[in-house]
């Protein structure tokens, strides 16, 4: 009899039932809420305004009484206070000057995330769990894939030490022009597990190709390729498997503000990493939880009682949640981040994310999966979907005609597709919305 593959538990937390995990989360979240109330004026004021007190916290439903915070709220605190840091960091273990601070940048501004030693210890353990789920095992060299300014840099050392993995530090920074250095690192140390920002994967494949090394040769011996930094569609996952010949391509979704989720072997959504955060997906208007599979705002609460505390933080991501039992046996619900609300656009009667366009394209015309594309502003302004598509190798014009017809039928809007000679590799995986001039100058 066939049985579904199960995830090997990292520790007893992975063996809890979903109901027991909920109870565990209640205890952890209550502790963080108490800490926020006791130590941080930011949360004390917000709790008071909402009529909430941590003693009222008894079930996960009680979490909804805590007001949602957004980046704008944190930026306002920074603006208005004379404090060096945001008002959301805790010194539970005593004032620890030996902190590192990482940056959370975006279109709206930069905020600062505090990492104390205690935070690094707890987050490091939790992130080791996440990487275990993704397939990391002791022994393999670990290529450091995040520069020191990023929050991931603060946990990679802990992960390496947890699994006793040798650390391989690549020179340069993680921009495409340094891709050849990552290629050198992979070829020299032959890791079995690689974590990489999605756009960098294509840059390193291109850099290897320039040296006459195929994707298969580059990734020989790699058992798991974990991509992060962008949501991948099923077609993108299989495209990556095709070009690298890596058996398992996994996705990690994370943020500097302690959101962390990883997909299991079934790759049907990303399991929330329970000792990092608790996640909700809420209706954008009502703020109420959406049914499973329905799109909403991803709001998370950190369960780590140290460093910067994020309680019901809306990082601006759109996503879905699935609370049904996963055949892998892990008890935490699965989420899937689909993109940023700020990238959301309307065309015809559709409200779409770039992810939707890519998903539709690969679903309707599987031959085009993994193709870089741009959604043009001019098209949207004219009520149509106009795409610039990097000319797929050896493709016929009929393929683009087919895509045009199928997308037009699917979205019920006029669709135009132009093949362009080249698009930057950074556009692969996450189609940007650009003017034609921006797209031309980027190419």
């Amino acid at each position, binding site marked *: 009899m066939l049985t579904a593959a199960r995830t090997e538990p990292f520790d007893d937390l992975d063996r809890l039932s979903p109901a027991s995990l909920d109870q565990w989360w209640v205890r952890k979240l209550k502790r963080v809420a108490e800490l926020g109330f006791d130590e941080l004026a930011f949360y004390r004021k917000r709790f008071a305004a909402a009529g909430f007190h941590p003693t009222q916290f008894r079930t996960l439903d009680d979490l909804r009484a805590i007001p949602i915070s957004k980046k704008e709220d944190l930026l306002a605190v920074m603006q208005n206070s004379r404090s060096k840091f945001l008002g959301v960091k805790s010194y539970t273990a005593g004032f620890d000057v030996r902190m590192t601070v990482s940056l959370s940048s975006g279109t709206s501004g930069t905020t600062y995330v505090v990492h104390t030693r205690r935070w690094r210890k707890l987050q490091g353990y939790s992130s080791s769990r996440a990487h275990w789920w993704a397939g990391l095992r002791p022994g393999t060299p670990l290529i450091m894939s995040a520069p*020191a300014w990023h929050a991931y840099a603060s946990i990679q050392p802990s992960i390496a*030490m947890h699994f006793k993995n040798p650390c391989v530090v690549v020179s340069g920074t993680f921009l495409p022009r340094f891709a050849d250095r990552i290629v050198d690192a992979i070829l020299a140390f032959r890791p079995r597990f690689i974590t990489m920002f999605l756009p960098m994967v294509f840059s390193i494949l291109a850099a290897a190709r320039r040296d006459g090394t195929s994707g298969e040769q580059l990734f020989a011996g790699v058992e798991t390729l974990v991509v992060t930094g962008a949501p991948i569609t099923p077609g993108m996952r299989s495209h990556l498997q095709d070009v690298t010949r890596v058996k398992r391509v996994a996705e990690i979704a994370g943020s500097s503000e302690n959101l962390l989720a990883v997909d299991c072997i079934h790759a049907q959504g990303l399991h929330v990493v329970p000792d990092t955060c608790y996640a909700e997906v809420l209706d954008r208007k009502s703020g109420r939880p959406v049914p499973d599979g329905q799109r909403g705002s991803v709001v998370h609460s950190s369960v780590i009682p140290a460093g910067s505390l994020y309680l019901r933080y809306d990082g601006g991501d759109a996503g879905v949640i699935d609370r049904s039992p996963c055949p892998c046996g892990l008890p935490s619900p699965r989420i899937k981040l689909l993109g940023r609300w700020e990238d959301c656009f309307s065309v015809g009667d559709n409200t779409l994310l770039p992810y939707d366009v890519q998903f539709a394209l690969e679903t309707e015309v599987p031959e085009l999966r993994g193709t870089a594309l741009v959604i043009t502003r001019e098209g949207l302004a004219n009520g149509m979907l106009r795409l610039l598509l990097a000319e797929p190798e050896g493709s016929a014009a009929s393929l683009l005609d087919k895509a045009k017809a199928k997308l037009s039928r699917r979205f019920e809007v006029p669709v135009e597709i132009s093949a362009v000679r080249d698009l930057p590799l950074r556009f692969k995986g996450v189609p940007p919305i650009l003017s034609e001039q921006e797209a031309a100058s980027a190419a």
Partner: protein
Amino acid sequence: MLRSRNLAECRFYRERMGADARPMPWGLAELEAFAATDSSDPFAGRVHDGVTPKVSLQLEATTDPSIWIALDPPELDRWAGVIERMWKRWGTAPGEAVAFFDYGCSPLVLLASSGYVGYLRRGAAERLGLTAVCNDGVAAMAGRMVGIVEALEPSMLIVRRDLAVPFCLALESAGTNLADRIRWLAIAEVEGCANRREADQLSARLGVKVWRILRSDAAFLIAGECAGCRAFHLDGEYFAEALASGHVAITTRFAQLCPAVRFDIGLARLINGGCPLEPRAQRVEC
């Protein structure tokens, strides 16, 4: 210090052993030439065959072939100690922050905190009670560096030399004056050091003390300019010798796994002791 017998177990040194049982001085060119003969060895013959180092760092100063250096955890800690003492000489106080505008992979950054590299027990910032913050070391992030200066109020800045001008322009554009905020700023080249005139010009432009760092990752060399004599003071972890060619060679005492013996830093003047601020320190002028 490594014995010559142990040193000869490393292929790179075995071929360089002189009649006096010491390796001939070498520089990056010799290392690259050796690496080109065996592309399968990332360490260019400087690490014993079969050893798996806990930490390997890719040299930024060499590209083709790619060359790596390696350390074990205690060596990593001793290297961080070099940075700790360099900063201490320039002046720091517990509770202050040090900010970096450099690549995260630079040893100047990595060795600051155990949060930046695995197996480092205590980074330089942790030893001195400092908070560390790193901005990505590309010119496009100069504006964000100004934001860090304004929001986090670091007292010390470490800036990659090629980012000094973009940083100045961003400061001027934002109207941010460093003079009242910063204790010191240090500039570092990937290999070697910035010239003194450039540092002085930067100091005049920003209104803060600017110190130079002498760096050569192949030899694990990091040395800071002295506030008194303006020469580079060598930490006790290094031993320098003057060569007949007028060059100076450096041997790094803590480097056992990937030895750095008689690394030629080029034309320089070696001064043994004599600076009132650190009377016994070996000093290098270059």
